């Protein structure tokens, strides 16, 4: 939204004019900003020393490789630099045993297929071969014996990757350039007169 932005401090001042009665009116921006800083600080502390809490380091590397194949680096960051695998590992560490088991088996299956077809670990394949293998997984039938339930795993993997990437700073700001969650003075609406109808 291109509408005029108000500086946050001014916005809070403006809003306070309306304060009355039981409820003290104040923008909640400070609370959100504090939460954001906290999360950023926590994340920075973790980044250098990250260890997976659910996956083995080897499985985490398979996951990071797969996630980067799904959302690769282009002119904007990809899944690996958005640390998608770290978020997926965190979520997995709190899932039920059944879900955890299913995901772990999916990763192991990727390596098994890689050994079967190319006689190498998945993470050591060339990017072209990795992509070919993922493509095979994506297009396999659900529960196809050869693919070992690959299709379902692919859907799950892609859903988790998409969620983790597009909820990251990289996904929201650098890739999509989403402009929301701001304090705007006015709602401009559609800026293209060609889209508007003949108003009656």
């Amino acid at each position: 939204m291109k509408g005029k932005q108000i500086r946050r401090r001014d916005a809070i001042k403006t809003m306070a004019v309306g304060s009355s009665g039981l409820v003290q009116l104040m923008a909640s921006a400070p609370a959100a900003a504090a939460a954001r800083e906290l999360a950023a600080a926590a994340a920075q502390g973790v980044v250098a020393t990250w260890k997976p809490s659910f996956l083995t380091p080897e499985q985490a590397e398979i996951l990071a490789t797969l996630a980067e194949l799904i959302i690769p680096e282009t002119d904007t960051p990809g899944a690996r630099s958005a640390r998608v695998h770290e978020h997926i590992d965190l979520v997995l560490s709190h899932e039920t045993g059944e879900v955890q088991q299913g995901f772990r088996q999916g990763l192991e299956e990727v390596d098994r297929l890689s050994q079967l077809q190319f006689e190498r670990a998945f993470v050591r394949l060339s990017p072209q071969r990795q992509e070919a293998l993922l493509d095979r997984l994506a297009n396999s039938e659900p529960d196809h014996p050869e693919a070992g339930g690959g299709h379902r795993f692919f859907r799950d993997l892609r859903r988790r990757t998409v969620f983790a990437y597009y909820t990251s700073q990289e996904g929201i700001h650098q890739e999509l350039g989403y402009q929301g969650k701001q304090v705007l003075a006015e709602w401009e609406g559609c800026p293209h007169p060609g889209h508007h109808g003949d108003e009656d």
Partner: protein
Amino acid sequence: MAQREYDVLVVGSGAAGGMAAKVLTEHGLEVLVLEAGPPVKNTDFLTHAMPYDFPFRGRGNPRVIQKDGPLAAREQTPFSGYYTKESEHPYTNAPTSGPQKPYKWTGRSRILGGRTLHWGRQSFRLAEFDFKAASIDGFGVDWPLSYGDLAPYYDKVEDYVGIQGFKEGLPQIPDGRFLPPFAYNCFEHLIRKAAARKGWRMTALRTAQLSRYHRGRPPCHYCGSCGSGCGIGAFFSSIAVTLPDAAKTGKLTLLTDAVVREVVVDTEGRVRGVSYIDRKSKMERKVRAKVVVLAAGTLESTRILLNSVSRFHPQGMANESGVLGHYLTDHFTAGQVIGVLPELVGSKIRNDDGKANGSYIPRYSNLGSRHPKFIRGYAIMVKGGSSVFPRHADLIGGFGAGYKKRIKELHPAVVRVYARGEALQIFDSYVEIDPEVVDAWGIPVLKFHYKRTDNDYHMLDDAFQNLQELMHEAGAEILSEDKSLSAPGRIIHEMGTTRMGEDPRTSVLNQFCQAHEVSNLFVMDGGCWPSSACQNPTETILAIAWRSSDFLAEQFRTGDL
């Protein structure tokens, strides 16, 4: 506290309870509001937070989701009761079969302000014909009040609450006193033109969000975070509007963390107060009043009445008719189509979710001519544009750089249309007390028996076809289609279980929400609706609560209660 006798005791602080508190205190009555949840302030809301501000990106810990449901697990609302925990507030369903889904009692809140903290804000008047639907098509009963009876209160509510929207001159959604409307997003202009070619008029959703300063409250600043509560009170909620006004009178006492168990009667069977459990200590206490107003939400008010068994009221309070708990309905979503508008593919990503709402094609069925297969009708909701998360990513195939590019290109172009229909109220859809199960405070819970009617499925056939035609007319590329009815309860517009009517043998309340059976008991929430129309209910709930509270105060003054 237990010794003091209040004039009126209001159970619940949501839309109806907040309005009752405001109106009754302004009439000079001493009012105690009991709220089952904790207090909350506007400043508690994390309205401008981004998903990455939270460990689980806002969605919540899977373990908490499993235990307490996805709503209670949400991280943007980190306070107790904003959404209730399923583990503490169980309910049961009778077995269902076939396409019938069990009732899903979702979206519940136990917190000061109740569901007004996160409601959808959509505000429509019912039509004149909605109040006499039975006379028109022969199904069910007419309302015991007319549009004319309620119209002055719709005016008052709109003036007071502040509702933005366009005047359209359509009898299905009568015009009112609106603030200037929010401008349309791109996708809304395009769908609006397509709807016009189908002969339908699309209008922006009328919402209780301020488009300018209104009665001391600041306007919306378009952060699009309404679902997490409003930090500045720019949309209507009890804590931003009605409760502060009630407090200003000096007549309001507020008691939070008070979980009401039952209505208490005197030796003649008349209401003399309620008993409640202190949420934290779990101690049972009583509080007295000359009049009790239940406004705990349709199903919680009904549950309190069903649990209020005494020798005077052996089937529960206000249940001589045997209809208490029956005629349960919720609006339903009848089909959904998601597509992409080619004109918008690849356009700049903005923040189409900033105004936090979409558009609306009002009901067109059974207005002049009669549909051969179903009665009543539905409206079409139009949502879309770019938002913080590209939900369409799961609806397109592939992976890699092309997939990533496609997600971005489609983001501003995605449109979702779905129908919102009226479910008929039938005796066989009902709640009762499940004697086997109690909640975390030891109070017996509700058991649901819900039955869809054939009318619902015929309406779905018609709605789905029209949704497809609308998207076709707009030239949309379809991403997904879903021809199904939402689970009952899913729309969180529960109604009907304490229906109002002229005949005490077939209804619980009179037209002023006063129990036929006990004159000093009122039930002012959505439970009173004897038919549910298809418009969002809150504005009508507010208007009815205001009108009923005026009546209550007048009766109190003349000593008729």
